[in-house]
């Protein structure tokens, strides 16, 4: 147990150092201009980590005050993370006005549905409320990123390597948060020592992915997309769908004939 605690403290220091390095990179390479919400998320996470560290040192791990403050600061980090993920989504699709208008509504709906499910699936224990919220938001973020990447693939939108790395980092970390919190909820006492440690390891992995992606300068301004006149979509899309429908009907008839014969 003492070894775990020591390793945990070392990992905490390593994560904080990693965040400082990444923040420095963001400032030096001026990438904070392209990714302000992501930079803010790192800054908030670093500040809240330091706050939690001092709170625990002051009141101890078992204190109720320390527990409330630490989880309260975690709520702020969650909010900042959600903003950073929204920024990733915007970077990927906002150039394509029509598709973006459709995508953000679907992404928001997905996030809300997943969050509702997570709340319904929780134990409804007030002590575990923040854990439940953490897991719910983690699952929502992972879902949003996966749906976003599926959108990009469906519409053949080229994903910028930095945006791709940010998305992968957030998604992997969020998936791990869900697993970690789910296991913790079930084996609360036996798992609590490992829970924090594994969480920090997962964050370190994501931090490495982000640092690798943001080590070079990014162009601040995105090139403006030249869009087609709106009449083209309105004229062609229904025509295409009508043909597809007819095509499918033909196939259905063919399938029925075959089923009848065999």
């Amino acid at each position, binding site marked *: 147990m003492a070894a775990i605690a020591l390793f945990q403290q070392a990992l905490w220091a390593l994560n904080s150092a990693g965040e400082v390095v990444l923040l420095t990179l963001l400032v030096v390479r001026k990438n904070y201009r392209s990714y302000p919400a992501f930079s803010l998320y790192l800054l908030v996470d670093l500040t809240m980590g330091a706050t939690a560290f001092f709170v625990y040192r002051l009141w101890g791990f078992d204190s109720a005050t320390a527990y409330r403050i630490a989880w309260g600061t975690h709520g702020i980090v969650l909010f900042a993370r959600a903003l950073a993920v929204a920024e990733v989504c915007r970077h990927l699709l906002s150039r*394509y006005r029509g598709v973006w208008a459709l995508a953000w509504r679907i992404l928001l709906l997905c996030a809300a549905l997943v969050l509702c499910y997570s709340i319904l699936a929780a134990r409804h224990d007030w002590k575990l409320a923040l854990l439940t919220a953490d897991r719910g938001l983690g*699952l929502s973020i992972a879902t949003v990123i996966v749906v976003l990447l599926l959108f990009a693939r469906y519409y053949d939108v080229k994903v910028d390597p930095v945006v791709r790395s940010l998305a992968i980092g957030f998604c992997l970390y969020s998936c791990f948060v*869900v*697993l970690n919190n789910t296991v913790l909820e079930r084996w609360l006492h036996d798992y609590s020592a490992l829970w924090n440690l594994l969480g920090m390891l997962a964050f370190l992995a994501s931090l490495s992915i982000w640092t690798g992606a943001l080590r070079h300068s990014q162009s601040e301004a995105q090139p403006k997309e030249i869009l087609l006149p709106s009449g083209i979509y309105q004229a062609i*899309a229904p025509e295409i769908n009508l043909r*597809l429908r007819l095509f*499918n009907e033909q196939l259905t008839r063919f*399938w029925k004939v075959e089923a009848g014969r065999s």
Partner: protein
Amino acid sequence: MNFFFYTFILAVAVLLFLLAWSLRAPRKRRASSLDPVSSLQDPGRRHATYLPQIRRALAPADFEFLTSHASRELTRRVGKERRRIALAYLSGVQEDFQRLLKLARVIAVLSPEVGAAQEFERLRLGVQFALRCHMIRAELFLGLAPLPQLSGLSQMVSGFAARIETAITELGERAALATELASSLERRGVDLS
């Protein structure tokens, strides 16, 4: 509680699978085989345009004649060949369909407004088409589907292409639109390869 525990684990597994799937590199195809712009510029290159030749090659009368006059070995070999041709042709028709579907997606990406209903319907129909093609392919492979039925598919694809071209021509400046599409795609990351 057990149920919810496993649903969370399953959800994460599904999300990780979809993440890996969405990030995988697109399949390499011939440079212009799925280029919607070239399909606009050169409508004569479709597989569906070879329908009369394919229909002649797959005509049931020829096969019936062969069955009654030739040896079993020859009949079996010809049947196998016909099936191979039909499968290759089905792949070609599917490629035509995909090219046109891709054109629809490119237009959606470059449009300032898209209709959610239209997009969802196209997604649904595209999935339906792909599933049915797989079923027909399986039937052809097992020797259950009669070959001439394919002509229905081809006519539908060629009709579809012709109507899209007409719609674009009606809007005017077809060449300008094709050039605009091509340059927009090249400049701004819509991957056509």
